[in-house]
């Protein structure tokens, strides 16, 4: 395509050019002699505004702007899994080959590896009639993930040409379809999809299944649902990234898309180094084989940060359409919101709260609404779960990003500075966190764990709430003046906090705890509470009731009882029972 468009203004990542009447909104363009990648974000008469995804230093007025004719899109095909990309799906390993060590400009739009050949198994034959979403071939992308090649959403037709099974590169036409008006479409190993457009599904379904994470405070107290949304807000140093990493490592989604949005370079390096060595408990293969990483570190161009969350969610939807359960971690959505603010400021738009643009809430809503449990076009059940970290300025949850995010997510896992200072990890505050999924997940818990687990959860939460009230009194007058039954509440709350809510991500057993153990541990704490309460009601002093050794054993059961052998719980319960029976008998 030709164009006479020339740059007329440059201000950081925002560039204006004239003669752009033929350009479309959201079209991808090449800016300047270096062919920097940009996107049209406003058109006013012949003058267009472009946000540029690369450093604009050195750009001159009157350099050309070239159209590409299509919106900013991703190539979706084999080669995504286990790879790390920048905010616009350029593989960072490839960039490293081109521009050693540091990320240069003008690398151009590269994405999937075009030279690698994949072993393809064709699943259709001549004469088959295919509709959008139908699978026409399979590729074993990694040891864990089978990549299912699907007919793109706008294409239907009859198979008129098909290649035999074999090894092909992604540019090879595998299948040719003949449409209604005789239009022929080649199906290659990839399809393209614009990042800002949600991919279509047959229908959205109710959420009924939890996203099991192996983290006690989540699975039991504030569960997440497959297809649901969650926000993890917390000031710096409260462990947002750590929590996100734990979820990426251990949640039972089939595929993880991890977006490092405006975060630290070393954190992404850490993921790159650690994930290949971690073993997925379900498949016993390295976790990296089911993970896609998107990295726009805080010093990479800000416009690409804005695009990175859309890139991530589009990849997630693509794998969802194959029938997988995908979880997407965005760390952190605040950086994305700040990227919006930064670009909005450069556009000299009228700011709303704290300088954020007025469209912040609608952008957040659009993003979180792309989560869901769906029936795909090929009639499979699949889901996208979104877990977004929020980094509130000053740790203040009333700032615009946290406030608006709260409106669009159903689970809110508030990280607490005070808990983090005491190194209580995960520092999820049980008083102001919530999960809207308790009710819909009830049947699943009853069926798969036990009927009393949610009741148990509520009882334990009551103890924690009561402890919170009592602790105000304790802070004023000391613990000693409380009656024994209230002191027992404090002691049990301590057991719950240390023995249950705190979970050690660096301990080989404690980093991931299967649900049955989570449930039995809670049963055990309740049992200890009931037995102790019984003794307290007999008038036995708390100093006797609180057997330090037993209480310590309960608090340390997370370490001492292995995940795959829960018989120790029964033994410990017997020990508790015999101690209290003896104690009560001696007072009768």
């Amino acid at each position, binding site marked *: 395509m030709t164009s006479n468009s020339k740059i007329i203004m440059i201000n950081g990542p925002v560039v204006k050019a004239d003669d752009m009447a033929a350009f479309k909104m959201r079209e991808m363009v090449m800016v300047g002699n270096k062919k920097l990648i940009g996107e049209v974000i406003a058109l006013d008469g012949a003058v267009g505004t472009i946000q540029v995804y690369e450093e604009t230093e050195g750009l001159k007025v009157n350099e050309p702007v070239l159209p590409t004719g299509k919106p900013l899109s991703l190539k979706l095909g084999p080669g995504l899994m286990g790879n790390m990309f920048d905010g616009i799906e350029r593989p960072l390993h490839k960039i490293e080959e081109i521009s050693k*060590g540091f990320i240069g400009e003008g690398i151009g739009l590269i994405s999937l590896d075009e030279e690698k050949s994949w072993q393809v198994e064709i699943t259709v034959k001549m004469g088959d009639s295919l509709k959008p979403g139908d699978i026409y071939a399979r590729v074993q992308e990694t040891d864990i993930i089978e990549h299912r090649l699907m007919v793109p959403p706008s294409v239907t037709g009859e198979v008129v040409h098909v290649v035999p099974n074999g090894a092909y590169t992604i540019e090879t036409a595998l299948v040719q379809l003949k449409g209604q008006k005789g239009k022929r479409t080649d199906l290659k190993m990839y399809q393209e999809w614009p990042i800002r457009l949600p991919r279509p599904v047959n229908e959205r379904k109710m959420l009924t299944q939890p996203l099991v994470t192996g983290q006690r405070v989540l699975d039991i107290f504030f569960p997440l649902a497959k297809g649901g949304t969650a926000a993890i807000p917390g000031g710096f140093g409260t462990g947002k990234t750590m929590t996100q990493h734990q979820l990426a490592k251990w949640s039972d989604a089939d595929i993880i898309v991890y977006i490092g949005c405006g975060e630290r370079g070393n954190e992404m390096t850490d993921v790159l180094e650690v994930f290949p060595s971690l073993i997925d408990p379900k498949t016993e293969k390295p976790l990296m084989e089911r993970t896609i990483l998107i990295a726009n570190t805080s010093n990479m161009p800000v416009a690409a940060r804005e695009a990175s969350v859309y890139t991530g969610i589009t990849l997630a939807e693509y794998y969802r359409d194959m029938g997988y359960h995908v979880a997407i971690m965005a760390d952190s959505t605040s950086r994305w919101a700040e990227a919006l603010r930064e670009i909005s400021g450069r556009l000299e738009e009228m700011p709303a709260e704290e300088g954020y643009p007025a469209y912040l809430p609608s952008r957040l809503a659009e993003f979180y609404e792309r989560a869901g449990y769906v029936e795909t076009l090929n009639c499979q059940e699949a889901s996208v779960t979104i877990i977004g970290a929020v980094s509130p300025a000053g740790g203040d949850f009333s700032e615009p990003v946290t406030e608006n995010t709260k409106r669009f997510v159903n689970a809110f896992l508030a990280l607490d500075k005070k808990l983090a200072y005491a190194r209580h990890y995960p520092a999820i505050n049980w008083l102001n966190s919530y999960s809207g999924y308790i009710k819909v997940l009830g049947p699943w818990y009853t069926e798969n764990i036990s009927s009393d687990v949610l009741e148990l959860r509520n009882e334990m939460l009551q103890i924690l709430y009561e402890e919170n009230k009592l602790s105000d009194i304790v802070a004023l007058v000391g613990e000693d003046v409380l009656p024994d039954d209230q002191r027992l509440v404090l002691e049990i709350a301590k057991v719950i906090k240390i023995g249950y809510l705190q979970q050690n991500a660096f301990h080989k057993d404690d980093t991931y705890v299967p649900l049955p153990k989570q449930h039995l541990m809670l049963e055990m704490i309740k049992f200890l509470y009931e037995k102790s309460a019984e003794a307290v009601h007999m008038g036995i002093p708390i100093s006797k009731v609180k057997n330090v050794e037993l209480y310590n054993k309960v608090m340390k059961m997370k370490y001492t009882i292995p995940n795959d052998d829960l018989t120790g719980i029964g033994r410990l319960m017997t020990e508790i029972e015999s101690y209290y029976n003896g104690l009560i008998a001696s007072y009768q």
Partner: protein
Amino acid sequence: MNKEYLRLDKIEGPLIFLSGIEGASYGEIIKIKVDDGTERYGKIIRLEKEAVIAQVFEGTSGLSTKNVRVKFTGKPFELALSTEILGRTFNGVGRAIDAGGEIFSNELYNINGRPINPVARQYPRDYIQTGISTIDTLATLIRGQKLPVFSGNGLPHNELAAQIVRQAKLSGDKNERFAVVFAAIGVKHDDAAFFRKSFEAAGALDNVVMYINLADDPIVERISTPRCALTAAEYLAFVCGYHILVVMTDITSYCEALREISSAREEVPSRKGYPGYLYSDLAALYERAGMMKEVEGSITYLPILTMPNDDISHPIPDLTGYITEGQIVLSRELFQDNIYPPVNVLPSLSRLMKDGIGEGYTVKEHPDVANQLFASYSKVQDIRALAQIIGESDLSPVDQAYMAFGRAFEGDFVKQHGNENRSIKKSLEIAWQLLSMLPKEELDRLDDEIIAEFYGK
């Protein structure tokens, strides 16, 4: 591009406005000859058709719209670097201000640098012993880390930074080359002199490069000072293979300069009048620390910032904390109790320590002991609050033990002499003495085996 432009349209604060310009490029450096014979430099920060807005590094005072000749260099801000810079002192735009003359070199580096590709980074794991108990034990400094010191006006952050420079240099370096890059941004004359003197006292002056922008130097130079310093650090680390410690003070002055220029440009402000891009801008500095694969050197980065009104939620410390890998927070309360270094360990944190301590790095029990110290000292805070109301003598025996633990923690562990270089072993020994003051069952973060091995010994 040898055209000279003889007229400015407008001068406003540090900015000059020109029109009728052809072929200027964004970010390019301009030379401004003033009719008094001096020469200044500026950088283009906005281009619109033939109009240019540039910021002048040396400030605009003395400029008129007519007494200047402006020349466009066609180049971004580049610094000439060679290993000759070691032992030298430069101003905020990289020009020598000592007696040694300019640096001549063909190796030119853009001071904005480029982002390090995350796949090219090497995850930092080697720990640096600073000889300061609180840092080594509880917020361990790792080679390649960016760890800021959050301080307040009048607190001894300079002394602490100087002590780290002095002591960190000596630990475990075999034949590795070590150098310090020091950047002073808008600091007082005596602060700059203090650092110079302490480098001298450590006998390290030959291995120090200094970039100095004093409090009365031009504002715009504050923007380029840290960039020059980090470009020099990158050169020494990633080209020459040095292990570099970058000490930078005071980031608060940097941010204020940024705010001043932003407001002169009439940009939409965000929190407290700071520009909306403060986060990205700070990140562009902090993220230049690190280590890279297949490259010998490293950049460890210790920026110092004074929290306005000691407020950790102020945008500067807040955004910094989100980018850096932890922070060392100084406390006015401890300082008033005559405790040096007044490190408040509870909000202090090193995000990289988890991978750089423990077996094979420091000692096996280090992570657990650190956790226990945090948990116990955090409990001391609650008990102190209680003791203020009911009096210490009415506390339960366990709580009284905590009170004693708290005092000893501050007096024996946190407090140390400005020249005292404690080994990690020594620091942990003190830690065990303190933990042994508490009843065993209070040590809920430690395994029984570890308690059996060290408790009371």
